[in-house]
């Protein structure tokens, strides 16, 4: 099967530089060596059954972004915003060194290797040292093919806001991957709210941070299909900061398995994970959060909060907040909770005239809004709040 897949992959590598072709070959050949999970297996089986190897139509991908790319290029000199395969040809050194190496390593798991092997397209964004991009850079695409990958490199002292709102339209399980590489003192605000069409999908956003860089991730996982995630920040250099704030809703018979990790490698690094999720109907919501502080990361701060609000009796949840600490000069803490809306709160609101239904809705919003309100972009916030209301109202038959 490998041979067949291999030849299919090779056939699809038109107009690709040598190094990329070789990498994709290697990925096919070596993938069985890397670890895998049952959920990933399901996704890969679907891919193997019918590998969709076409490269995303440059024009189609480009059209949505063409204006944006122009704007960015006009306002800030030196910024690059190109389709991924085009960038592979124009900036081979940059991509060879950084594509699926430092953040979403292709050797990390079988799924990652397959993602690389079957890559359909993506975006490459480069912000040169010291450049401050005021306008948010949008990563928006209607994506009919499963494997889409963004590589964002932010140079030393540069600043940018990235808004990712991608929609997978194909029936095969999609894997959306975004790598954020931050240089010394870089600042990135990253928002994401993707949508999928297939029954199950995978989402990875991983960051590698040099010293004193600051990354704020705001994630709204509002899609209705099964999802596995891999959110990760590697605070490699000293003084780096990473904040991951997430709200999610799981409804119907959805299974959402959320993996989030921050690694404090350098001294005086600060990592904070805040995840608030609502589970209703017969959904399953799992939060696995890991805060790892390595030896030598003195003065580090690692905090986590994972909270699940259950709105029905049949939903299921898991919250595993893990702390791996090898350094004693740290401040680490975590909190996790799973439970219903507080009965006293319900009673209080009802005693002021609200129906049980409205009181419940108000308290549920009150559970998610504090995190949602920390998403700085106002327009995005408002859209998300509307969507939130809609998802909560939905009846499950």
């Amino acid at each position, binding site marked *: 099967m490998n041979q067949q897949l291999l030849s299919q992959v090779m056939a699809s590598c038109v107009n690709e530089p040598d190094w990329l072709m070789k990498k994709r070959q290697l990925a096919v050949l070596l993938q069985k060596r890397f670890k895998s999970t049952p959920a990933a297996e399901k996704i890969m089986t679907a891919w193997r059954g019918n590998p969709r190897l076409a490269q995303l139509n440059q024009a189609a991908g480009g059209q949505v972004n063409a204006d944006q790319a122009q704007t960015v290029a006009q306002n800030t000199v030196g910024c690059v915003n190109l389709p991924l395969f085009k960038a592979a040809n124009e900036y081979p050194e940059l991509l060879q060194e950084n594509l699926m190496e430092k953040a979403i390593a292709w050797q990390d798991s079988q799924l990652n290797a397959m993602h690389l092997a079957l890559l359909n397209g993506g975006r490459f964004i480069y912000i040169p040292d010291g450049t401050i991009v005021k306008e948010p850079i949008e990563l928006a695409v209607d994506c009919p093919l499963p494997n889409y990958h963004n590589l964002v490199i932010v140079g030393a002292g540069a600043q940018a806001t990235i808004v990712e709102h991608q929609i997978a339209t194909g029936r095969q399980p999609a894997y959306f991957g975004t790598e954020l590489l931050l240089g010394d003192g870089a600042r990135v605000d990253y928002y994401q709210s993707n949508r999928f069409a297939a029954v199950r999908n995978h989402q990875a956003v991983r960051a590698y941070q040099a010293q004193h860089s600051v990354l704020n991730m705001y994630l709204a996982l509002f899609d209705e299909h099964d999802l596995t995630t891999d959110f990760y920040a590697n605070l490699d250099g000293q003084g780096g900061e990473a904040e991951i704030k997430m709200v999610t809703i799981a409804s119907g018979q959805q299974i959402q398995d959320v993996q989030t990790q921050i690694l404090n490698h350098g001294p005086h690094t600060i990592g904070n994970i805040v995840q608030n999720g609502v589970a209703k109907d017969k959904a399953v919501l799992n939060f696995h959060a890991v805060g790892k502080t390595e030896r030598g990361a003195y003065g580090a701060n690692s905090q986590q909060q994972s909270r699940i609000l*259950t709105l*029905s009796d049949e939903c299921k949840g898991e919250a595993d907040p893990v*702390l791996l*600490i090898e350094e004693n000069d740290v401040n680490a803490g975590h909190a996790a*909770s799973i*439970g219903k809306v507080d009965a006293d709160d319900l009673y209080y609101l009802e005693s002021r005239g609200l129906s049980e239904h409205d009181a419940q809705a108000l308290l549920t919003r009150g559970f998610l809004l504090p995190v949602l309100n920390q998403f700085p972009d106002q327009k995005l916030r408002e859209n998300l709040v509307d969507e939130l209301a809609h998802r909560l109202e939905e009846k499950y038959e």
Partner: protein
Amino acid sequence: MSDEAGQQAADKAAIQEFASQHYQFGFHDDIKPLFSTGVGLTEETVREISRRKHEPDWMLQIRLDAYHQYRQMKLPAFGPDLSQLNLDQLRYFQRPTDHVARSWDDVPQAMKTTFEKMGVPEAERKYLAGATAQYESEVVYANLKRDLSRQGIIFMDTDTAVQKHPEIVKKYFATLVHPADNIFAALNTAVWSGGTFIYVPKGVHADAPLQSFFRINAENTGQFERTLIVVEDGASVNYVEGCTAPVYSEDSLHAAVVEVFVHPNAFCRYTTIQNWSSNVYSLETKRAEAEAGATMEWVDGNLGSKVTMKYPSIYLRGREAKGTMLSIAFANGPIDQDTGARMIHQAPHTHSTIISKSLCRAGGICDYRGEVKMDENAHGSSSHVECDTIIMDDDSSSDTIPYNKVAIGDVAMEHEAKVSKVSEEELYYLMSRGLSEEEATKMIVMGFIEPFTKQLPMEYAVELNRLIDFQMEGSVG
């Protein structure tokens, strides 16, 4: 001024003494075990053990099945490094005397000296409601006070219980901890010897805590006591055990199995303080089940050993059952304390609480591994977990790995943890009132574990206090 110099010199000497890791109970008697099955474990060894104990056939069968199970199993894939533990090098059975003593006068003198050195005070024996002391793998001293017998409380070693109360033992033995559960449970079920058997009849309340002392002796002896506690409806009992062991050149294994059955509306608290010497592997399986309206409490202090793996668990099987786990782990030196708790909610309106406090220094490792599970029947249940760790220096480390899983929505589960070093703010505050850095550190440490110590019987709290005090000496600077 010369007093001060003298004091400083004395302090220095004391610190040097401690630094050479001198274990205060480092001695062992020259008692030659009367009988030993030699090194290593075979089916013949298992049969011999059963034969010597004159066991009925059903118990021999349980042992043999467990032995075959053991042969098929592997060491656990998680947790501390057990590679230096060689199960085939251990001696599996000792019987120091030929009979179980009924009164203190009958106990061999060498053993009495051991108890004296351990500091079991004379007066205590009158106060306590009768103590069974385990020496080697055998209970040497058993004395039941008339009160207990009159109330119908059975308190004896497990070997004797097999002979005298086979119906009870047969009903419960290995029903909660199956040999297939883990390799050490299988091993224990095959070669178990000694341990405590407690049976409390319906509605009976044991007034004073029941206590037990035991030690490991002779090189490479495995300690496989098997404890069975049954508390009938509406009854209550408090069981306390503290143990210590001398230093050896080769490693010692302590793989006990404890099964506790708490019937409806009954209460059981099981308190352990373990201060094994630095070459002992303490790998225990402790499990309890609590039925409707029952309460089970584990109070666990882990102070010593080379490696400890212990995750006392409580199965909350009946409506409104309650489970509590209160533990401290102190890894002082190159020790690996891998401890935790498991609370399994299988009925509605059940509640569990886990409070775990760990301290590590001088290269110690303190890992918390916990699990709280609520299945489809656990409607309206709640759980609260608090685990805090203080890593005192940069040679030590700690991991907190909890699993919190619910299969339904109408439950409440809370989990909190904090990891840090001794707070500089707190040290400064206490020192500004005149305490030295060492005194201030001790005070913060004692304050940290206070929720645990206040649940101990006083003599244990005092012993614990003294122990930590001693272990903290010379710990600063």
